[in-house]
């Protein structure tokens, strides 16, 4: 017996450890190489962990992600030259999703940023954080300071009962709404907490000094609603929630419109100014539609169709690729994300996939596969 398609995040470099390494091992976490670190892929099992997050609350260690603070005169305008978001329009403690774009409009990374009193706090993907930092340093003027907070751990508490558990430990977090954050004090430790995440559920992301991360993880998992959850369930949860994963569903060959992330270019001012990288191409695609587009697929039968499988046209020619795929525990069926020609992108379209010589039927589905349950504020 042998694996036929291990996740290709596995890298041949010396692995580093994160602040919660021993904490995971002590709790039976099965550690695997991920984004250059040892990370827990599962504890009791991906299926059970996934379902636990959907019904209660799960604690994820995402300390491999890059936490950056940008500050300096003219920051908003300078950052707007690199991402399509309305940076100026983000209010204090407001959080926004955006994309770091290459000159041709290709996606270099996806990210979240929040307005702090003295700058912008940004979270970028772990696998490309050093490339992102290099890109930001190269393209932002010297007046902008970039601080990589590599001593900070990042925890995510996700699920419908996350607010019950966290508000017992850190009162006040219940007043946050989706895509806002705040500074909080936990027994003398400063925490930055935002109401956001990567599962489609309500939940929080918590930035904590690395040396306090284990104590906070202990306090959170002591709450009856909370269990530690590995990266395996994080992947299946985000897939069900239509949240693309950089390096798989997004890369420099894809644009925001190809990736069906039109909401990332929602600012009318930014579109009119058209001064973000690749604006000309992206705005044409926004008007006319991209030639290929990311869609969700419900796969017939029980066998998962995974990253790398080919999308076939009626003649059996390859016209697209599956970029993520697996078994959706909430649905009890295999699902996938794929890039397909625009003519095949309408929900309900039946398409064929070829995985290792075997043809599978799939139907383009409305996404997300599982409804989001964010706690939004009044507009």
């Amino acid at each position, binding site marked *: 017996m*042998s694996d*036929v398609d291990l996740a290709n995040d596995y890298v041949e470099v010396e692995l580093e450890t994160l602040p919660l390494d021993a904490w995971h091992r002590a709790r039976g976490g099965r550690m695997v190489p991920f984004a250059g670190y040892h990370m827990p892929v*599962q504890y009791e099992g991906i299926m059970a962990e996934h379902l636990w997050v959907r019904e209660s609350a799960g604690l994820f260690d995402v300390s491999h992600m890059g936490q950056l603070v940008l500050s300096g005169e003219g920051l908003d305008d300078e950052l707007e030259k690199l991402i399509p978001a309305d940076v100026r329009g983000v209010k204090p403690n407001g959080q926004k999703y955006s994309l770091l774009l290459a000159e041709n409009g290709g996606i270099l990374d996806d990210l979240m940023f929040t307005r702090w009193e003295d700058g912008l706090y940004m979270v970028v993907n772990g696998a490309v954080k050093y490339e992102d930092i290099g890109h930001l340093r190269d393209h932002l003027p010297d007046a902008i300071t970039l601080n990589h907070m590599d001593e900070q751990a990042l925890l995510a508490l996700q699920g419908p009962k996350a607010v019950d558990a966290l508000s017992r430990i850190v009162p006040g977090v219940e007043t946050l709404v989706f895509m806002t954050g705040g500074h909080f004090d936990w027994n003398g430790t400063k925490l930055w907490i935002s109401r956001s995440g990567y599962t489609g559920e309500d939940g929080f992301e918590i930035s904590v000094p690395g040396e306090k991360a284990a104590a906070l993880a202990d306090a959170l998992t002591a709450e009856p609603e909370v269990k530690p959850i590995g990266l395996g369930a994080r*992947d299946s949860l985000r897939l069900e929630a239509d949240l693309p994963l950089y390096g798989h569903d997004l890369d420099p060959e894809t644009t925001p419109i190809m990736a069906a992330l039109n909401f990332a270019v929602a600012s009318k001012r930014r579109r009119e100014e058209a001064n973000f990288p690749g604006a000309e191409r992206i705005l044409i695609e926004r008007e006319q539609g991209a030639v290929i587009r990311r869609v969700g697929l419900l796969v017939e039968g029980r*066998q998962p169709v995974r990253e790398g499988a080919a999308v076939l046209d009626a003649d059996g020619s390859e016209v697209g690729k599956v970029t993520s795929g697996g078994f959706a525990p909430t649905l009890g069926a295999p699902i996938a994300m794929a890039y397909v020609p625009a003519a095949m992108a309408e929900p309900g379209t039946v398409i064929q996939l070829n995985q290792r010589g075997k043809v599978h039927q799939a139907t383009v589905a409305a996404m997300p596969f599982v409804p989001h349950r964010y706690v939004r504020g009044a507009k």
Partner: protein
Amino acid sequence: MRYFTEDHEWVDVDGDIGTVGITDYAQGQLGDIVFVDVPEEGKTVAKGDEAAVVESVKAASDVYSPVSGTVIEGNAALADEPGMVNEDADGEGWFFKLTLSDLDELEDLMDEAKYEAFVAKL
């Protein structure tokens, strides 16, 4: 008598009939199994051939035939209940039965004690 491969398959031999499965260690490594594809009756397999597919939530794996022979039955129950491999890899979660074409091939396989020692070093 049960024999084991280094790839974590087992074959239980009775006369010239073998029943093939994956070991409890293997199912534990795979995690939640969501799909199993077993070979059809009449298929001939050579020792080491990819004979079945097992998929967990996170990965797909090939199952190799520990011996050569002709498949006489695939475990049809696994189509609807792939999780049976997690629950009972050594028993109800068997993959297929075959008629062995070369009993001498068994000499290359490990017995249970050797397999347990092999797994203990992993």
